[in-house]
């Protein structure tokens, strides 16, 4: 064992918590290393002094003072609890009053108004279907739309076609004729 290892293990050595083999190694090191033996003795002596410091006792009036402080603390607690409860009560009362006032106000306001408002029955009728006749140019529009042209050019085009063409009935094309 070297001095570094001895110093690392010294805490457990002084506290007597080392395992058997480690303890023997530490004891052997103390026996052969003067410097570590000196340090070990110095620490043990200092600890002995500290551990033997006379114990101090509480003063004679310690218990009486503690009892008085406990009573005062209990009274404080009681006071605080009472205050807290009062505060909570006051808040609850305020909320309840506000709700009551609101309710009374609403009731009074509603009493001025007619209770049952009778409205005439609503009669809904289905509007007549609007069969707007197709203008003369309509078949041309339809045909132009189906041909993939936009509506406005088609309409313009329809304006320009001869009325006879616009009024003609659409028939199946017969290419044999």
């Amino acid at each position, binding site marked *: 064992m070297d001095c570094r290892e001895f110093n690392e293990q010294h805490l457990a050595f002084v506290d007597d918590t080392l395992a058997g083999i480690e303890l023997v190694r530490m004891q052997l090191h103390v026996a052969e290393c003067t410097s570590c033996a000196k340090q070990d003795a110095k*620490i043990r002596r200092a600890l002995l002094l500290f551990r033997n410091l006379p114990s101090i006792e509480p003063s004679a009036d310690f*218990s009486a003072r503690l009892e008085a402080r406990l009573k005062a603390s209990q009274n404080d*607690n009681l006071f605080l609890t009472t205050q807290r409860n009062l505060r909570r009560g006051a808040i609850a009362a305020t909320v309840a009053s506000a709700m009551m006032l609101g309710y009374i106000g609403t009731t009074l306001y509603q009493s001025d108004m007619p209770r049952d408002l009778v409205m005439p029955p609503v009669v809904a009728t289905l509007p007549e279907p609007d069969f707007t006749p197709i203008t003369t140019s309509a078949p041309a529009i339809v045909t132009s739309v189906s041909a993939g042209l936009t509506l406005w050019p088609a309409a313009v085009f329809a304006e320009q076609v001869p009325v006879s063409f616009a009024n003609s009935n659409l028939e199946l094309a017969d290419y044999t004729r």
Partner: protein
Amino acid sequence: MADIVRKRVVSVEGATVRERLQAMDDSAVVTAFLGGEERAFSELVTRYQTRLLNFVYRTIGDREKAEDLVQEVFIRVYRHLHRFDRSKKFSTWVYTIASNLAKNELRNRSRNPLVLFQTVQKNFQDEDRPLQFEDPTSRPDDMYRKRHLREIVEESVAKLPEHHRNVFILRELEGKSYEEIAEITDCNLGTVKSRLNRARNSFAEIIAPYVD
């Protein structure tokens, strides 16, 4: 006559309860207190007042303030005992409260020079106490030597850094295990061991010139 008999019965009952409480471990006393037995709290005070006073006094170095702080510890225990986790050790909990209060006191003192001055002044006045208060049975030169040595030891402890001193006192004076110290000081086990090792070495170095 009936009154006297009743008083005797009550006093015998009280004595029996006290004896029963004395025989209980901390956990059972705490349970008794939480169950409504007010005398259980006195039992806890009796068990811990001297130990806590020594611990706090060695930590902050002011006896009067140490008493105040120990009283504060008991007041907190009384108020918060219902919150105490009974799966843990009562003594660890109590020492944690005491340790935190002592730490706060030291912190406040370092911030407030007036408090420091008052403490110094109080300690100075303590010096003027007649020697006979120390130990009336000893010879004057013995008394002086003992008192002188005690002061040297106390001063040497006071020179340790706060976190080292705390661990040192808990271990060397209160005999707490490393694990308990770790819980009380809210440190891990490695830190506790390292601090204790350093504290022991520093204390030995500080005190060596006086005792060699």
